[in-house]
Protein backbone atom coordinates (compact mmCIF):
# COMPACT_ATOMS: atom_id res chain seq x y z
CA UNK A 1 0.00 0.00 0.00
CA UNK A 2 1.16 3.52 -0.70
CA UNK A 3 1.77 5.80 2.26
CA UNK A 4 0.44 8.84 0.43
CA UNK A 5 -1.51 9.15 -2.79
CA UNK A 6 -2.63 12.23 -4.65
CA UNK A 7 -5.28 11.45 -7.24
CA UNK A 8 -5.86 14.18 -9.84
CA UNK A 9 -5.47 16.88 -7.21
CA UNK A 10 -6.00 20.45 -8.37
CA UNK A 11 -5.77 23.74 -6.56
CA UNK A 12 -6.07 27.32 -7.72
CA UNK A 13 -5.75 30.60 -5.88
CA UNK A 14 -7.85 33.47 -7.23
CA UNK A 15 -8.12 31.75 -10.60
CA UNK A 16 -4.39 31.10 -10.79
CA UNK A 17 -3.56 27.41 -11.02
CA UNK A 18 -1.18 26.20 -8.33
CA UNK A 19 -1.61 22.48 -8.88
CA UNK A 20 -3.03 20.94 -12.01
CA UNK A 21 -4.34 17.36 -11.89
CA UNK A 22 -1.45 16.09 -9.79
CA UNK A 23 -1.32 12.33 -9.42
CA UNK A 24 1.44 10.98 -7.23
CA UNK A 25 2.01 7.86 -5.15
CA UNK A 26 4.60 7.78 -2.40
CA UNK A 27 5.83 4.40 -1.21
CA UNK A 28 5.76 3.47 2.45
CA UNK A 29 9.04 4.13 4.25
CA UNK A 30 10.52 6.05 1.36
CA UNK A 31 12.30 9.39 1.38
CA UNK A 32 10.71 11.29 -1.46
CA UNK A 33 11.92 14.76 -2.43
CA UNK A 34 9.65 17.06 -4.37
CA UNK A 35 12.03 19.24 -6.35
CA UNK A 36 11.12 22.23 -8.45
CA UNK A 37 11.75 25.90 -8.97
CA UNK A 38 10.16 28.43 -6.60
CA UNK A 39 6.37 28.76 -7.09
CA UNK A 40 6.21 25.30 -8.67
CA UNK A 41 3.51 24.26 -6.21
CA UNK A 42 5.61 22.26 -3.74
CA UNK A 43 4.36 24.03 -0.63
CA UNK A 44 0.76 23.93 -1.88
CA UNK A 45 1.04 20.18 -2.40
CA UNK A 46 2.28 19.74 1.17
CA UNK A 47 -0.25 22.14 2.65
CA UNK A 48 -3.02 20.14 0.97
CA UNK A 49 -1.58 16.97 2.42
CA UNK A 50 -1.43 18.28 6.00
CA UNK A 51 -4.85 19.89 5.66
CA UNK A 52 -3.96 23.57 5.74
CA UNK A 53 -5.58 24.07 2.34
CA UNK A 54 -8.57 22.39 0.74
CA UNK A 55 -8.37 20.84 -2.72
CA UNK A 56 -10.44 22.19 -5.61
CA UNK A 57 -10.69 18.71 -7.05
CA UNK A 58 -9.23 15.23 -6.68
CA UNK A 59 -8.52 12.99 -3.74
CA UNK A 60 -5.77 12.59 -1.19
CA UNK A 61 -5.27 9.20 0.42
CA UNK A 62 -3.19 8.50 3.50
CA UNK A 63 -2.42 4.79 3.84
CA UNK A 64 -5.45 4.11 1.65
CA UNK A 65 -7.79 6.28 3.75
CA UNK A 66 -9.44 9.26 2.04
CA UNK A 67 -8.35 12.36 3.96
CA UNK A 68 -9.26 14.94 1.32
CA UNK A 69 -11.70 16.74 3.60
CA UNK A 70 -10.43 15.61 7.00
CA UNK A 71 -9.35 18.38 9.37
CA UNK A 72 -5.58 18.66 10.00
CA UNK A 73 -5.94 17.23 13.49
CA UNK A 74 -7.26 13.94 12.13
CA UNK A 75 -4.47 13.37 9.64
CA UNK A 76 -1.64 12.63 12.05
CA UNK A 77 1.14 13.93 9.85
CA UNK A 78 4.40 15.34 11.23
CA UNK A 79 5.00 18.73 9.63
CA UNK A 80 8.02 21.01 9.52
CA UNK A 81 6.96 24.26 7.84
CA UNK A 82 9.23 26.37 5.69
CA UNK A 83 9.40 29.08 8.33
CA UNK A 84 10.50 27.84 11.73
CA UNK A 85 7.28 28.99 13.46
CA UNK A 86 8.73 28.33 16.89
CA UNK A 87 6.54 29.79 19.60
CA UNK A 88 8.45 32.75 21.07
CA UNK A 89 6.63 32.50 24.40
CA UNK A 90 7.69 28.91 25.00
CA UNK A 91 11.06 27.39 25.86
CA UNK A 92 12.79 25.09 23.39
CA UNK A 93 11.65 22.11 25.46
CA UNK A 94 8.02 23.23 25.39
CA UNK A 95 8.24 23.94 21.69
CA UNK A 96 9.47 20.44 20.95
CA UNK A 97 7.03 18.84 23.38
CA UNK A 98 4.13 20.86 21.93
CA UNK A 99 2.58 18.17 19.68
CA UNK A 100 2.70 15.63 22.51
CA UNK A 101 1.35 18.08 25.07
CA UNK A 102 -1.56 18.75 22.75
CA UNK A 103 -2.30 15.07 22.34
CA UNK A 104 -2.37 14.71 26.12
CA UNK A 105 0.52 12.26 26.39
CA UNK A 106 1.79 11.44 29.91
CA UNK A 107 4.52 13.76 31.18
CA UNK A 108 7.17 11.03 31.53
CA UNK A 109 6.61 9.83 28.00
CA UNK A 110 6.92 13.39 26.69
CA UNK A 111 10.19 13.92 28.58
CA UNK A 112 11.57 10.64 27.28
CA UNK A 113 10.66 11.35 23.66
CA UNK A 114 11.87 14.95 23.75
CA UNK A 115 15.19 13.85 25.23
CA UNK A 116 15.63 11.15 22.61
CA UNK A 117 14.83 13.43 19.66
CA UNK A 118 16.87 16.32 21.06
CA UNK A 119 19.82 13.98 21.53
CA UNK A 120 19.48 12.79 17.96
CA UNK A 121 19.61 16.39 16.69
CA UNK A 122 22.27 17.52 19.23
CA UNK A 123 20.13 20.21 20.82
CA UNK A 124 19.89 18.83 24.37
CA UNK A 125 21.85 21.82 25.71
CA UNK A 126 19.30 24.30 24.32
CA UNK A 127 16.26 23.00 26.18
CA UNK A 128 15.86 25.88 28.63
CA UNK A 129 16.48 28.64 26.09
CA UNK A 130 13.78 30.54 24.23
CA UNK A 131 13.72 30.64 20.41
CA UNK A 132 15.04 34.22 20.24
CA UNK A 133 18.26 33.03 21.89
CA UNK A 134 18.96 30.48 19.16
CA UNK A 135 20.93 30.76 15.93
CA UNK A 136 19.29 29.99 12.59
CA UNK A 137 20.63 26.45 12.50
CA UNK A 138 19.56 25.74 16.07
CA UNK A 139 16.06 27.07 15.38
CA UNK A 140 15.88 24.83 12.35
CA UNK A 141 16.86 21.78 14.34
CA UNK A 142 14.32 22.60 17.02
CA UNK A 143 11.66 22.96 14.32
CA UNK A 144 12.65 19.62 12.85
CA UNK A 145 12.59 18.03 16.31
CA UNK A 146 9.08 19.36 16.91
CA UNK A 147 7.96 18.10 13.50
CA UNK A 148 9.28 14.64 14.32
CA UNK A 149 7.72 14.46 17.78
CA UNK A 150 4.45 13.02 16.61
CA UNK A 151 3.98 9.33 16.39
CA UNK A 152 3.17 9.82 12.72
CA UNK A 153 3.45 7.50 9.77
CA UNK A 154 4.29 10.34 7.39
CA UNK A 155 6.54 13.33 7.94
CA UNK A 156 6.35 16.35 5.68
CA UNK A 157 9.26 18.78 5.56
CA UNK A 158 8.71 21.89 3.49
CA UNK A 159 12.11 23.19 2.40
CA UNK A 160 13.37 23.17 5.99
CA UNK A 161 16.98 24.01 5.17
CA UNK A 162 16.34 27.04 2.99
CA UNK A 163 18.42 30.05 3.91
CA UNK A 164 20.91 28.15 6.06
CA UNK A 165 24.62 28.33 5.34
CA UNK A 166 26.08 25.56 3.28
CA UNK A 167 28.03 23.78 6.02
CA UNK A 168 25.05 23.65 8.32
CA UNK A 169 22.80 22.45 5.51
CA UNK A 170 25.21 19.68 4.71
CA UNK A 171 25.30 18.57 8.34
CA UNK A 172 21.54 18.72 8.73
CA UNK A 173 21.07 16.78 5.52
CA UNK A 174 23.21 13.98 6.93
CA UNK A 175 21.25 14.08 10.19
CA UNK A 176 17.94 13.92 8.33
CA UNK A 177 19.05 11.00 6.25
CA UNK A 178 20.17 9.14 9.34
CA UNK A 179 16.91 9.97 11.05
CA UNK A 180 14.88 8.62 8.17
CA UNK A 181 16.76 5.36 8.39
CA UNK A 182 16.25 5.15 12.15
CA UNK A 183 12.55 6.01 12.13
CA UNK A 184 11.72 3.86 9.09
CA UNK A 185 8.77 6.08 8.24
CA UNK A 186 7.75 7.91 5.10
CA UNK A 187 9.36 11.29 4.50
CA UNK A 188 8.17 13.87 2.00
CA UNK A 189 10.58 16.73 1.53
CA UNK A 190 10.36 19.82 -0.66
CA UNK A 191 13.31 21.76 -1.99
CA UNK A 192 14.32 23.87 -4.95
CA UNK A 193 17.94 22.85 -4.50
CA UNK A 194 18.80 19.89 -6.70
CA UNK A 195 21.92 19.03 -4.70
CA UNK A 196 19.77 18.73 -1.60
CA UNK A 197 17.31 16.59 -3.54
CA UNK A 198 20.01 14.26 -4.83
CA UNK A 199 21.69 13.98 -1.43
CA UNK A 200 18.53 13.07 0.45
CA UNK A 201 16.14 11.40 -1.93
CA UNK A 202 15.43 7.81 -2.64
CA UNK A 203 13.02 9.06 -5.24
CA UNK A 204 12.59 12.51 -6.72
CA UNK A 205 9.41 14.14 -7.95
CA UNK A 206 10.06 16.98 -10.35
CA UNK A 207 7.29 19.55 -10.09
CA UNK A 208 6.93 22.57 -12.31
CA UNK A 209 4.08 25.03 -12.83
CA UNK A 210 1.79 22.83 -10.76
CA UNK A 211 2.36 19.71 -12.82
CA UNK A 212 4.46 16.67 -12.13
CA UNK A 213 7.15 16.42 -14.76
CA UNK A 214 8.66 13.16 -13.62
CA UNK A 215 8.77 10.83 -10.63
CA UNK A 216 11.63 8.36 -10.52
CA UNK A 217 14.34 6.94 -8.26
CA UNK A 218 16.88 9.71 -7.64
CA UNK A 219 19.83 8.24 -9.46
CA UNK A 220 17.75 7.10 -12.45
CA UNK A 221 16.27 10.54 -12.73
CA UNK A 222 19.71 12.06 -12.76
CA UNK A 223 21.33 9.63 -15.15
CA UNK A 224 18.39 9.16 -17.44
CA UNK A 225 15.79 11.90 -17.12
CA UNK A 226 12.66 11.17 -19.07
CA UNK A 227 11.87 14.84 -19.59
CA UNK A 228 14.00 17.77 -20.58
CA UNK A 229 12.69 19.78 -17.60
CA UNK A 230 13.93 17.09 -15.23
CA UNK A 231 17.34 17.36 -16.83
CA UNK A 232 17.24 21.12 -16.43
CA UNK A 233 15.91 21.22 -12.86
CA UNK A 234 17.85 18.39 -11.25
CA UNK A 235 21.61 18.75 -11.44
CA UNK A 236 24.30 21.29 -10.75
CA UNK A 237 25.76 23.01 -12.71
CA UNK A 238 22.80 23.32 -15.05
CA UNK A 239 22.75 20.91 -17.96
CA UNK A 240 23.45 22.09 -21.51
CA UNK A 241 20.13 22.26 -23.33
CA UNK A 242 20.22 23.19 -26.99
CA UNK A 243 17.38 23.49 -29.46
CA UNK A 244 18.64 22.25 -32.83
CA UNK A 245 17.20 21.50 -36.29
CA UNK A 246 17.61 17.96 -37.64
CA UNK A 247 18.89 17.07 -41.09
CA UNK A 248 18.10 13.61 -42.47
CA UNK A 249 18.48 11.84 -39.13
CA UNK A 250 21.47 13.80 -37.92
CA UNK A 251 22.03 16.87 -35.79
CA UNK A 252 24.99 19.10 -35.26
CA UNK A 253 25.73 20.97 -32.09
CA UNK A 254 28.77 23.13 -31.28
CA UNK A 255 30.50 21.81 -34.38
CA UNK A 256 29.89 18.14 -33.50
CA UNK A 257 27.71 15.97 -35.73
CA UNK A 258 25.66 13.10 -34.26
CA UNK A 259 23.18 10.61 -35.54
CA UNK A 260 19.72 10.73 -33.96
CA UNK A 261 17.91 7.63 -32.67
CA UNK A 262 16.33 5.83 -35.61
CA UNK A 263 12.67 6.66 -35.08
CA UNK A 264 13.18 10.42 -34.63
CA UNK A 265 11.76 12.18 -37.64
CA UNK A 266 10.96 15.61 -36.21
CA UNK A 267 12.37 18.69 -37.99
CA UNK A 268 13.90 19.91 -34.73
CA UNK A 269 14.82 18.37 -31.37
CA UNK A 270 16.23 19.41 -28.02
CA UNK A 271 19.62 18.05 -27.05
CA UNK A 272 20.66 17.72 -23.43
CA UNK A 273 24.17 17.15 -22.16
CA UNK A 274 25.26 17.02 -18.51
CA UNK A 275 28.22 19.39 -17.84
CA UNK A 276 30.39 16.51 -16.59
CA UNK A 277 30.05 14.91 -20.03
CA UNK A 278 31.50 17.94 -21.77
CA UNK A 279 35.23 17.14 -21.62
CA UNK A 280 37.84 19.84 -21.83
CA UNK A 281 41.53 19.41 -22.63
CA UNK A 282 41.59 16.25 -24.75
CA UNK A 283 43.62 16.32 -27.92
CA UNK A 284 40.66 15.46 -30.13
CA UNK A 285 37.60 17.67 -30.32
CA UNK A 286 36.50 21.14 -31.29
CA UNK A 287 38.17 24.27 -30.16
CA UNK A 288 36.19 26.63 -27.98
CA UNK A 289 36.82 30.04 -26.47
CA UNK A 290 36.62 30.20 -22.66
CA UNK A 291 33.94 32.71 -21.66
CA UNK A 292 33.64 32.19 -17.88
CA UNK A 293 35.61 30.08 -15.42
CA UNK A 294 34.33 29.24 -11.94
CA UNK A 295 36.81 27.54 -9.65
CA UNK A 296 34.75 25.79 -6.94
CA UNK A 297 37.74 24.32 -5.13
CA UNK A 298 37.23 20.67 -5.91
CA UNK A 299 35.63 21.32 -9.27
CA UNK A 300 36.08 23.68 -12.18
CA UNK A 301 33.02 24.91 -14.07
CA UNK A 302 33.86 26.32 -17.43
CA UNK A 303 31.65 27.99 -20.02
CA UNK A 304 33.07 27.76 -23.52
CA UNK A 305 31.79 29.17 -26.80
CA UNK A 306 32.01 26.44 -29.44
CA UNK A 307 30.89 27.26 -32.91
CA UNK A 308 28.26 29.74 -31.66
CA UNK A 309 26.93 27.50 -28.86
CA UNK A 310 27.88 27.99 -25.23
CA UNK A 311 28.65 24.69 -23.52
CA UNK A 312 29.06 24.25 -19.79
CA UNK A 313 31.69 21.82 -18.62
CA UNK A 314 32.38 20.62 -15.09
CA UNK A 315 35.42 18.59 -14.20
CA UNK A 316 37.52 17.76 -11.12
CA UNK A 317 40.03 20.46 -10.25
CA UNK A 318 42.73 18.10 -8.98
CA UNK A 319 46.13 18.70 -10.63
CA UNK A 320 44.58 20.87 -13.30
CA UNK A 321 45.01 24.58 -13.64
CA UNK A 322 41.91 26.38 -14.77
CA UNK A 323 42.21 27.85 -18.27
CA UNK A 324 42.28 31.63 -18.58
CA UNK A 325 39.30 33.55 -19.90
CA UNK A 326 39.44 34.09 -23.67
CA UNK A 327 41.96 31.25 -24.07
CA UNK A 328 41.20 28.44 -26.50
CA UNK A 329 40.44 24.94 -25.20
CA UNK A 330 39.65 21.66 -26.89
CA UNK A 331 36.12 20.48 -26.10
CA UNK A 332 34.93 16.95 -26.76
CA UNK A 333 31.58 15.19 -26.53
CA UNK A 334 30.67 11.53 -26.68
CA UNK A 335 27.56 10.81 -28.73
CA UNK A 336 26.09 8.46 -26.09
CA UNK A 337 26.15 11.35 -23.58
CA UNK A 338 23.93 13.46 -25.78
CA UNK A 339 20.28 12.97 -24.85
CA UNK A 340 17.55 13.73 -27.36
CA UNK A 341 14.20 15.19 -26.28
CA UNK A 342 11.04 15.91 -28.22
CA UNK A 343 10.80 19.62 -28.92
CA UNK A 344 7.03 19.79 -28.30
CA UNK A 345 6.45 17.41 -25.41
CA UNK A 346 9.92 17.50 -23.84
CA UNK A 347 9.88 13.68 -23.61
CA UNK A 348 13.12 11.69 -23.86
CA UNK A 349 13.54 10.08 -27.28
CA UNK A 350 16.89 8.36 -27.00
CA UNK A 351 20.59 9.02 -27.16
CA UNK A 352 22.74 9.99 -30.12
CA UNK A 353 25.11 7.67 -31.90
CA UNK A 354 28.26 8.62 -33.82
CA UNK A 355 27.47 10.24 -37.18
CA UNK A 356 30.37 8.37 -38.76
CA UNK A 357 28.64 5.02 -38.15
CA UNK A 358 25.78 6.01 -40.43
Amino acid at each position, binding site marked *: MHAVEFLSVSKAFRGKTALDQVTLSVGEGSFTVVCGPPKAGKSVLFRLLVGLEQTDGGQILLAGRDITHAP*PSERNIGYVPQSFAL*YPHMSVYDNIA*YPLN*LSGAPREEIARKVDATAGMLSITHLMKKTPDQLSGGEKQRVAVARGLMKDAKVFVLDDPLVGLDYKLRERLMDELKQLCEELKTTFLYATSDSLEALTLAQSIVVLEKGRIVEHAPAIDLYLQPQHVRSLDIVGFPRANIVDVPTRSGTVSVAGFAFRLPQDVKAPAVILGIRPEHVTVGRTEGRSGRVAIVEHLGSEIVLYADCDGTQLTSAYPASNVTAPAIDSTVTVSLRPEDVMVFDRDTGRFLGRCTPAAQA
Partner: protein
Amino acid sequence: MSETLRARLYHVVLWIVSLIFFSPVAWIILSSFKTRSDILATPPKLIFTPTLDNYVDLFVNNRGFLLQLGNSIILSVTAVVIAVFVSFLAAFCFSRFKPKGTDFLMFLLLSIRMLPGPAVILPVYLMYVAFGWKDNHLAMILFYAMFSIPFSVWILKGFLDGVSTRFDETGRVNGGSWLHIIFRVVLPQVKPGLIAAFIFNIIFVWNEFLFNFIIGGVSTQNIPYALAVGAYSDGGLNWTFISALTSIYILPPVLFIYFFQKYLLVGMTFGTVRGEV
Protein backbone atom coordinates in the same frame (compact mmCIF):
# COMPACT_ATOMS: atom_id res chain seq x y z
CA MET B 1 29.86 72.34 20.78
CA SER B 2 31.02 69.00 22.11
CA GLU B 3 28.70 66.01 22.12
CA THR B 4 28.52 65.76 25.92
CA LEU B 5 27.71 69.44 26.31
CA ARG B 6 24.96 69.19 23.74
CA ALA B 7 23.54 66.08 25.43
CA ARG B 8 23.57 67.89 28.78
CA LEU B 9 21.83 70.89 27.28
CA TYR B 10 19.13 68.63 25.88
CA HIS B 11 18.65 67.11 29.29
CA VAL B 12 18.36 70.50 30.96
CA VAL B 13 15.73 71.60 28.42
CA LEU B 14 13.84 68.33 28.84
CA TRP B 15 13.83 68.71 32.60
CA ILE B 16 12.58 72.29 32.40
CA VAL B 17 9.77 71.35 29.99
CA SER B 18 8.82 68.36 32.12
CA LEU B 19 8.72 70.48 35.28
CA ILE B 20 6.53 73.10 33.59
CA PHE B 21 4.09 70.39 32.55
CA PHE B 22 4.21 68.76 35.95
CA SER B 23 3.72 71.98 37.93
CA PRO B 24 -0.13 71.99 37.90
CA VAL B 25 -0.09 68.40 39.15
CA ALA B 26 2.42 69.32 41.84
CA TRP B 27 0.29 72.31 42.77
CA ILE B 28 -2.86 70.24 43.19
CA ILE B 29 -1.05 67.55 45.21
CA LEU B 30 0.55 70.17 47.48
CA SER B 31 -2.79 71.92 47.85
CA SER B 32 -4.37 68.72 49.11
CA PHE B 33 -2.14 69.02 52.19
CA LYS B 34 -2.96 72.70 52.74
CA THR B 35 -5.75 74.41 54.62
CA ARG B 36 -8.21 76.45 52.64
CA SER B 37 -6.56 79.73 53.53
CA ASP B 38 -3.12 78.38 52.61
CA ILE B 39 -4.41 77.36 49.20
CA LEU B 40 -5.90 80.76 48.50
CA ALA B 41 -3.00 82.76 50.00
CA THR B 42 -1.31 85.37 47.82
CA PRO B 43 1.52 85.07 47.12
CA PRO B 44 1.19 81.25 47.00
CA LYS B 45 2.71 79.53 50.01
CA LEU B 46 5.44 77.03 49.25
CA ILE B 47 6.36 76.57 52.90
CA PHE B 48 3.37 75.53 54.98
CA THR B 49 2.34 73.16 57.74
CA PRO B 50 0.94 70.06 56.01
CA THR B 51 -2.42 68.81 57.14
CA LEU B 52 -4.37 65.62 56.43
CA ASP B 53 -7.68 67.29 57.22
CA ASN B 54 -8.75 67.38 53.58
CA TYR B 55 -8.32 63.61 53.28
CA VAL B 56 -10.01 62.92 56.57
CA ASP B 57 -12.86 65.11 55.39
CA LEU B 58 -13.09 63.17 52.15
CA PHE B 59 -12.94 59.68 53.60
CA VAL B 60 -14.90 60.24 56.82
CA ASN B 61 -17.33 63.08 56.27
CA ASN B 62 -18.05 62.73 52.55
CA ARG B 63 -20.43 59.80 52.46
CA GLY B 64 -20.56 59.53 48.68
CA PHE B 65 -16.81 59.30 48.13
CA LEU B 66 -16.25 55.59 48.71
CA LEU B 67 -19.21 54.77 46.46
CA GLN B 68 -17.81 57.04 43.76
CA LEU B 69 -14.31 55.56 44.04
CA GLY B 70 -15.73 52.03 43.97
CA ASN B 71 -17.88 52.87 40.96
CA SER B 72 -14.94 54.38 39.10
CA ILE B 73 -12.88 51.25 39.68
CA ILE B 74 -15.64 48.72 38.97
CA LEU B 75 -17.04 50.49 35.92
CA SER B 76 -13.69 51.13 34.27
CA VAL B 77 -12.01 47.81 35.00
CA THR B 78 -15.02 45.62 34.14
CA ALA B 79 -15.92 47.55 31.01
CA VAL B 80 -12.36 47.55 29.72
CA VAL B 81 -11.78 43.86 30.48
CA ILE B 82 -14.95 43.02 28.54
CA ALA B 83 -13.98 45.39 25.73
CA VAL B 84 -10.45 44.01 25.39
CA PHE B 85 -11.71 40.43 25.41
CA VAL B 86 -14.38 41.05 22.77
CA SER B 87 -12.00 43.20 20.72
CA PHE B 88 -9.33 40.52 20.78
CA LEU B 89 -11.75 37.97 19.33
CA ALA B 90 -13.01 40.46 16.74
CA ALA B 91 -9.49 41.50 15.79
CA PHE B 92 -8.51 37.83 15.48
CA CYS B 93 -11.39 37.32 13.08
CA PHE B 94 -10.45 40.39 11.02
CA SER B 95 -6.78 39.47 10.99
CA ARG B 96 -7.11 35.77 10.21
CA PHE B 97 -10.32 35.19 8.27
CA LYS B 98 -10.27 38.56 6.49
CA PRO B 99 -14.03 38.78 5.84
CA LYS B 100 -15.04 40.68 2.72
CA GLY B 101 -14.79 44.42 3.21
CA THR B 102 -12.43 44.17 6.18
CA ASP B 103 -10.82 47.51 5.39
CA PHE B 104 -14.18 49.26 5.19
CA LEU B 105 -15.41 47.61 8.38
CA MET B 106 -12.24 48.68 10.16
CA PHE B 107 -12.80 52.22 8.96
CA LEU B 108 -16.42 52.11 10.15
CA LEU B 109 -15.27 50.89 13.53
CA LEU B 110 -12.83 53.72 13.95
CA SER B 111 -15.32 56.26 12.70
CA ILE B 112 -17.43 55.52 15.78
CA ARG B 113 -14.56 56.99 17.77
CA MET B 114 -14.56 60.08 15.54
CA LEU B 115 -18.08 60.88 16.68
CA PRO B 116 -18.10 63.39 19.56
CA GLY B 117 -19.88 62.15 22.68
CA PRO B 118 -22.53 64.91 22.78
CA ALA B 119 -23.64 63.90 19.27
CA VAL B 120 -24.88 60.54 20.52
CA ILE B 121 -25.86 61.41 24.04
CA LEU B 122 -29.51 62.14 23.25
CA PRO B 123 -30.35 58.92 21.37
CA VAL B 124 -28.39 56.90 23.93
CA TYR B 125 -30.23 58.63 26.76
CA LEU B 126 -33.64 57.97 25.18
CA MET B 127 -32.71 54.37 24.53
CA TYR B 128 -31.49 53.81 28.06
CA VAL B 129 -34.62 55.38 29.51
CA ALA B 130 -36.82 53.26 27.25
CA PHE B 131 -34.98 50.09 28.29
CA GLY B 132 -35.10 51.10 31.92
CA TRP B 133 -31.33 50.96 32.03
CA LYS B 134 -30.67 54.39 33.51
CA ASP B 135 -28.59 54.39 36.69
CA ASN B 136 -27.71 50.73 36.23
CA HIS B 137 -24.17 49.40 36.70
CA LEU B 138 -24.42 46.68 34.08
CA ALA B 139 -25.85 49.11 31.54
CA MET B 140 -23.03 51.59 32.21
CA ILE B 141 -20.44 48.83 31.85
CA LEU B 142 -21.98 47.77 28.54
CA PHE B 143 -21.95 51.34 27.28
CA TYR B 144 -18.31 51.91 28.20
CA ALA B 145 -17.34 48.54 26.73
CA MET B 146 -19.16 49.43 23.52
CA PHE B 147 -17.34 52.73 23.36
CA SER B 148 -13.95 51.09 24.01
CA ILE B 149 -14.24 48.26 21.52
CA PRO B 150 -13.53 50.07 18.21
CA PHE B 151 -10.20 51.50 19.27
CA SER B 152 -9.17 48.23 20.92
CA VAL B 153 -9.97 46.29 17.75
CA TRP B 154 -7.75 48.70 15.84
CA ILE B 155 -4.84 48.34 18.21
CA LEU B 156 -5.18 44.58 18.49
CA LYS B 157 -5.56 43.96 14.78
CA GLY B 158 -2.19 45.59 14.24
CA PHE B 159 -0.64 43.30 16.82
CA LEU B 160 -2.38 40.20 15.49
CA ASP B 161 -1.29 40.94 11.93
CA GLY B 162 2.24 40.89 13.29
CA VAL B 163 1.84 37.32 14.56
CA SER B 164 2.55 35.01 11.62
CA THR B 165 -0.26 32.67 10.58
CA ARG B 166 2.43 29.97 10.51
CA PHE B 167 2.03 29.78 14.28
CA ASP B 168 -1.69 29.07 13.88
CA GLU B 169 -0.95 26.45 11.26
CA THR B 170 1.56 24.65 13.44
CA GLY B 171 -1.10 24.51 16.13
CA ARG B 172 -3.75 23.21 13.74
CA VAL B 173 -1.50 20.56 12.20
CA ASN B 174 -0.67 19.29 15.68
CA GLY B 175 -4.32 18.90 16.53
CA GLY B 176 -5.07 22.18 18.28
CA SER B 177 -8.61 23.60 18.12
CA TRP B 178 -9.27 27.21 17.12
CA LEU B 179 -9.85 28.05 20.77
CA HIS B 180 -6.48 26.55 21.62
CA ILE B 181 -4.83 28.58 18.86
CA ILE B 182 -6.57 31.81 19.89
CA PHE B 183 -5.84 31.57 23.60
CA ARG B 184 -2.70 29.43 23.88
CA VAL B 185 -0.79 30.23 20.72
CA VAL B 186 -1.73 33.75 19.66
CA LEU B 187 -2.83 35.48 22.86
CA PRO B 188 0.52 35.12 24.68
CA GLN B 189 2.20 36.73 21.70
CA VAL B 190 0.01 39.85 21.71
CA LYS B 191 0.22 40.50 25.44
CA PRO B 192 1.79 43.95 24.87
CA GLY B 193 -1.13 44.82 22.60
CA LEU B 194 -3.69 43.66 25.15
CA ILE B 195 -2.03 45.73 27.87
CA ALA B 196 -1.78 48.76 25.56
CA ALA B 197 -5.47 48.47 24.65
CA PHE B 198 -6.31 48.07 28.32
CA ILE B 199 -4.38 51.19 29.32
CA PHE B 200 -5.74 53.40 26.54
CA ASN B 201 -9.30 52.45 27.30
CA ILE B 202 -9.06 52.56 31.04
CA ILE B 203 -7.77 56.13 30.79
CA PHE B 204 -10.84 56.98 28.72
CA VAL B 205 -13.38 55.32 31.01
CA TRP B 206 -11.65 56.48 34.18
CA ASN B 207 -11.95 60.10 33.00
CA GLU B 208 -15.43 59.80 31.50
CA PHE B 209 -17.92 62.30 32.85
CA LEU B 210 -20.61 63.12 30.28
CA PHE B 211 -22.27 59.72 29.91
CA ASN B 212 -21.97 58.95 33.58
CA PHE B 213 -23.75 62.20 34.31
CA ILE B 214 -26.52 61.71 31.75
CA ILE B 215 -27.25 57.97 31.58
CA GLY B 216 -25.89 57.14 35.01
CA GLY B 217 -27.45 58.21 38.26
CA VAL B 218 -27.09 58.29 42.01
CA SER B 219 -25.91 54.69 42.34
CA THR B 220 -23.49 54.70 39.39
CA GLN B 221 -21.80 58.09 39.92
CA ASN B 222 -18.04 58.03 39.47
CA ILE B 223 -15.28 60.41 40.55
CA PRO B 224 -15.43 62.83 37.57
CA TYR B 225 -19.13 63.13 38.39
CA ALA B 226 -18.27 63.79 42.03
CA LEU B 227 -15.71 66.40 41.02
CA ALA B 228 -18.10 68.24 38.76
CA VAL B 229 -20.94 68.18 41.24
CA GLY B 230 -18.90 68.67 44.42
CA ALA B 231 -16.59 71.44 43.22
CA TYR B 232 -19.21 74.18 43.73
CA SER B 233 -21.16 72.59 46.54
CA ASP B 234 -19.73 74.96 49.11
CA GLY B 235 -21.04 78.11 47.52
CA GLY B 236 -17.72 78.84 45.83
CA LEU B 237 -14.98 76.62 44.45
CA ASN B 238 -14.23 74.02 47.10
CA TRP B 239 -10.45 73.80 46.56
CA THR B 240 -9.71 71.51 49.51
CA PHE B 241 -12.22 68.98 48.17
CA ILE B 242 -11.01 69.33 44.59
CA SER B 243 -7.33 68.96 45.49
CA ALA B 244 -7.76 65.97 47.80
CA LEU B 245 -10.11 64.16 45.44
CA THR B 246 -7.95 64.87 42.39
CA SER B 247 -4.80 63.66 44.15
CA ILE B 248 -6.41 60.33 44.92
CA TYR B 249 -8.08 60.21 41.55
CA ILE B 250 -4.89 60.56 39.50
CA LEU B 251 -2.98 58.03 41.58
CA PRO B 252 -4.22 54.77 39.94
CA PRO B 253 -3.64 55.90 36.33
CA VAL B 254 -0.25 57.38 37.22
CA LEU B 255 0.88 54.15 38.86
CA PHE B 256 -0.53 52.14 36.02
CA ILE B 257 1.20 54.16 33.36
CA TYR B 258 4.45 54.24 35.31
CA PHE B 259 4.61 50.46 35.44
CA PHE B 260 3.25 49.79 31.96
CA GLN B 261 4.58 52.76 30.00
CA LYS B 262 6.55 50.56 27.59
CA TYR B 263 3.30 48.94 26.47
CA LEU B 264 1.74 52.36 25.99
CA LEU B 265 4.50 53.29 23.56
CA VAL B 266 4.09 49.99 21.71
CA GLY B 267 0.34 50.53 21.57
CA MET B 268 0.73 53.94 19.98
CA THR B 269 2.39 52.31 17.00
CA PHE B 270 -0.54 49.86 16.58
CA GLY B 271 1.81 46.91 16.88
CA THR B 272 3.85 47.89 13.88
CA VAL B 273 6.92 48.42 16.03
CA ARG B 274 6.94 45.54 18.43
CA GLY B 275 10.32 45.98 20.08
CA GLU B 276 11.48 44.04 23.08
CA VAL B 277 8.53 44.07 25.44
